[in-house]
């Protein structure tokens, strides 16, 4: 897939994050914002909701394929990971 697909995915991920965390400000987060910790404040609860929704929408089971969950570094890394695998 091309870069356009990844940025579409990133837009959809922002929506999912807003729903999972209840934080409207995440709708405008940059692709380089860290998902864990001070960035998007992802924790095990919101992270699980995010991964479940990614699986449902894109058919990509991140937890099964990425042991270290490195793809969850930022919105950009996760979008690229999904765009490469989603069909």
């Amino acid at each position: 897939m091309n870069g356009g697909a990844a940025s579409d995915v990133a837009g959809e991920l922002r929506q999912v994050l807003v729903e999972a965390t209840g934080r409207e400000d995440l709708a405008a987060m940059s692709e380089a914002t860290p998902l864990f910790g001070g960035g998007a404040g992802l924790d095990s609860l919101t992270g699980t909701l995010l991964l479940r929704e990614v699986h449902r929408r894109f058919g990509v089971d991140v937890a099964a394929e990425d042991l270290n969950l490195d793809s969850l570094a930022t919105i950009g890394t996760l979008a690229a990971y999904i765009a490469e695998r989603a069909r």
Partner: protein
Amino acid sequence: MIVKCVIWDLDNTLLSGVYLESAEQPPPPDPAMLAVAAELRDRGILHAIASRNPPEAAQYARQATGLEFAAAECGWDRKSDAVQRIAADLGIAPDAVAFVDDDLYERAEVSFRVPEALVLSPEDMADAPGWAEFSPPTVTAEARRRAAMYAERRLRQQEAQAFAGSRDEFLRYCRTEVTIAGATPADVPRLHELSVRTHQFNSAGRAMAEPDLRSLTGSPAHQVTTVRLADRFGDDGMVGGCVVATGERTWTVTLLMMSCRAMGRGVIEALLAWLARSAAQGGATVLAVPCVVSARNVPLRLALAGAGFRAAESGPPDRPAAVFSRLLSGPPPELPDWVAGEAARR
């Protein structure tokens, strides 16, 4: 698998008649089912309602039975959907749910769509207190308060939805207090219960027997730790714990567990930060958490990744496992400010 929640049909199941046929004077509870339900409640098993009735029927059932219901789904859509919504709402896996209905068609529908659930007729249910699925090995103080804690959880979730700030701000607003302390022999029954009941946050993927836990609490080479949680909505009691083999260079967490009720409440982050600080103070350079890798404990892997742990694969392909570890060089992680008591001052 121990059943954590029984989901009841009302008409001709928990009630001895049909609610809407006599709305003026609804039918009383079925005495046999009520006795079973009260016995299971005293063992710490939750109750919920899935009924083809208006919502008033659930209120009536509460008042007529004197039971607390952790969730109630009243409506006319599929019972399997109601069962799945209740399980998701309570954070319970479908294989820890029992569904009781007198209607053969409803039982078939739930069995087909939620095959993990235990589906029973009222006649089956009469014998249920004698079955292993309904006999938790120990009944702790936490188990007896479980229904009340789910009611407190519902209030907390309602406030969280209306709350404008971040999760951490909400935890402070709730006056969240996480208390981390060394385990005593009196804590062993609850630690054992946690090891049986936790799946989403259980590193070992199996239970630890009481005698093993008891001997570890006295072992100089190990540290057994308890985690308690309370806020202004209520006291959740002991929600987590861990067992650490305190080696010279490496501290190895042989069991790390937390109740899924405590998810999203800053507990696992607090425990992981506390462990890293304690290990560094104890002179270790590495903190390691061997972990089974399964679809069920993804929340634990998320917490480990969020706390800076890195995984190396281990274990045979049929039982995938990994060792998550974290170097202890550099400044120790900050303890969240909701960590209370002795641990926070160390």
